[in-house]
Every structure is written in structure tokens, then in C-alpha cells.
């Protein structure tokens, strides 16, 4: 068979289909396989819409601001979020976590909505400040009996993927209609953040 006829993407897709068709046994319980730790950790950041909104907003804002913010912000967020997670795991209290998470979605969404362009340091500091609240909330909720390493890696990679999603959406910013679309997305994040703030206060 002449494989040159097929594009690399088609070959990769065929390989992916083959891999996914090779069904394996489900080791669904924590003690059976370490991968459970990875998948549980991977699922954790994407299981809460309040976290998802803020993380996607970070990516959107980075895409709006362009280089170097497009990669500085998504690097700063997981690092500081992991620091917050470490504080949560260690049992260090952080007051107003739910308010901080909701406020992060409101302010980051507003930054995208109004296309605010502060200096890079200010943007990184703002993102880092709110990342502590997200990390702390995750850290205090982590389940026992998991593989710490794989759980942590899954957790961080999922966070990075959410930023990448935001950056991916934000790539339309180069077009006029895309700029409006990104700002609308920022507005939706503000609405979502306001809802979670209302829930936290109520």
C-alpha cells in the first residue's frame, strides 16, 4: 500500500482510531492503577464552571494582549495556582476563597470585554493573585488515596489545556469580527462570574 497518498494528518487520525479501538480493561478504582490518579487530577479543574471560566479568560486575555503576555500569563497562572494548591493541601487557611474565584471571573472577563491593556507585570500580578484562590480551593478538595504525582500532573495539564483553549479561541482576534467575538466571550465570562458571586453571597 502506498502510504504517500495519505496526508500526515490522515495517517495520524487512522493511528488514533486504531489506538482507541484497542479496548483495555477498565481499572476504575484508585488502588488498581496509577492512571486513575492522572485522570482524576485531569478532571478536577474542568469539573467546576467557575474555574473553567477564569482559566479560559486568562487565555483569551493573553491572546488579546499578544506576545509576551500570551505565554507569560498561562505560565504564571498554573505556577501560582499550584502554590495555592500547596497551601490548601498543607491546611493553610485562605479566607473568602469562593468570593475570590467569582471575582476572578468577573475581573478577568471584564479585562477581556473592555480589552484592557495594563503593563505585563500588572497583568501577571492580577492573574497570579487570583490563581492562588483557584489553587487553594482545589488543594482543600483533593481526595485521599490517589497517586500524588500523577494527580498533580493531570491537574496542571488540564489547567494548561484550558488556557490553551482560551488562546485558541483568542486567535480570531486578528480579524475585526474576531475582536468583537473575543470581547463577547469576555462579557459571557463576566456574566458567569457574577452568577457565581451571587451564589457565594446568597
Amino acid at each position, binding site marked *: 500500500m502506498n502510504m504517500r497518498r495519505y496526508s*500526515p*494528518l490522515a495517517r*495520524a487520525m487512522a*493511528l*488514533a482510531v486504531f*489506538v*482507541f479501538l*484497542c479496548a*483495555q*480493561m477498565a*481499572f476504575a478504582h484508585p488502588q*488498581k*492503577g*496509577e*492512571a486513575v490518579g*492522572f*485522570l482524576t487530577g485531569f478532571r478536577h479543574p474542568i469539573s467546576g464552571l467557575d474555574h473553567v471560566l477564569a482559566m479560559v479568560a486568562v487565555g483569551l486575555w493573553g491572546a488579546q494582549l499578544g506576545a509576551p503576555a500570551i*505565554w507569560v500569563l*498561562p*505560565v504564571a497562572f*498554573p*505556577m501560582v*495556582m*499550584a*502554590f495555592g*494548591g*500547596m*497551601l*490548601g*493541601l*498543607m*491546611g493553610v487557611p485562605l479566607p473568602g476563597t469562593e468570593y475570590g474565584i467569582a471575582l476572578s471571573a468577573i475581573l478577568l472577563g471584564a479585562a477581556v470585554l473592555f480589552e484592557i491593556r495594563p503593563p505585563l507585570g500588572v497583568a501577571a500580578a492580577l492573574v497570579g493573585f487570583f490563581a492562588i484562590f483557584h489553587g487553594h480551593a482545589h*488543594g482543600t478538595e*483533593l481526595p485521599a488515596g490517589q497517586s*500524588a*504525582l*500523577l*494527580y*498533580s*500532573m493531570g*491537574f*496542571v*495539564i488540564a489547567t*494548561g489545556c484550558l488556557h490553551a483553549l482560551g488562546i485558541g479561541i483568542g486567535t480570531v482576534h486578528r480579524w475585526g469580527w474576531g475582536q468583537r467575538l473575543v470581547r463577547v466571550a469576555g462579557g459571557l465570562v463576566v456574566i458567569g462570574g457574577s452568577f457565581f458571586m451571587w451564589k457565594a453571597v446568597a
Partner: protein
Amino acid sequence: MKNSSQSRLPLYAFVVFTFAMWALPAEAHLNTTGMGPFYDGLMHFLMSPEDIVPVLALALLAGLRGASYGRRALFTLPVAWLLGGLAGLSSMTAQPHPFVAAAWFLLLGGLLAADAKVSLRMTTALAALVGLYHGYLNGIGMGQFDTAAVVLLGLVFAIFVLIALAAAFVVRLRANWARIAVRVAGSWIAASGLLMLGWAVRKG
């Protein structure tokens, strides 16, 4: 030529991601695979993320610095791992300390994320320390000397191949975004190290 190699990167990333998502049960112990001690050692390394990630981080760091750094890590780390493993074989007992594992993640991931301008001497020292520490821990977990030595050889072979592939992959990267992607991977490793530190404190 340059453009064609760059355009394949997303394809490689997609294939690697596909395989990473294809989770298999971890059969990291020697009596379960039946493939012989050499392949048991090889598989043990490939199924031990606490060993793979520091090696990968060091290989990426060396690759970012250049080919000479990559070559130095390529030979220093496996040799140090082998020496550490042989030392571990003759030791009675020791426990891997979770704080040290977290510290390796933090240090190597942090250096990679910062694209630190580490010297060749520093890279060599880091490779030697990582190899001696992890090799020693591997060595004390193995059984009789004759079988364990072959297991160690398989393990060291896997390390050699991983460093060669990862460092060579990064050395040839020229696009700015690709080098930044490598640094982002470093930040993820460092962030995982911070969380592992929290886990270690929580468990006491």
C-alpha cells in the same frame, strides 16, 4: 527543509498525546511481565513517572542550551544512574523521600521554565545528581545482584534513549513558539512539584 520539519510538530504532538491518553495498567514489578530482566528494567523506567519526568526535564533543559549540553547529559545521566543503582544494590534499605522528589520537579522544571543559562558544568552536576539519587533508589528496590544488574542495564538503556530523543528534538527547534512550548512544559513540571510538596506535607 526547515519549514517541513516545523509543520510536522503538531502531528508529532498529536500522536504523543494520543498515546499518553491510552492508559494501561502499570505493571512496574518484575514478576508480572515475564519479559526477562533487561526488558523488566526498561519497562520499570517507562512506567515510573517519578523517574521519567526529571529525566525528561533535564533532557529538555540540555536541549534548549544546545547540542554540547545534550551530549553531556546523554552520557553523564545514564552512567550516574548505573553507578547509583549498583551502590543501591549493596545497601540494606532506604525510603524515597517525597520532599526530595518534589524538589527535583521544582528545580528542573523551574530551570526549564526560566530557560536558565546554566553552564555546562552545572548541567553535568545536575545530571550526575539526578542519576545517582534515582539510581540509588532503584537499586535498593531490586533483588539478587546478578538479575538486578541486568535490570539496571535495561533501565539505563531506556534513560539513554529517552535523553537522546528528547534532547535531539529540542536542539533542532528554531521556531520561537516551539521553544516557548518547551518552557511551558517546564512550568507544568515545576507546578506539579509544588503540588507534590503540598501532598508530602499533608501526609506528614
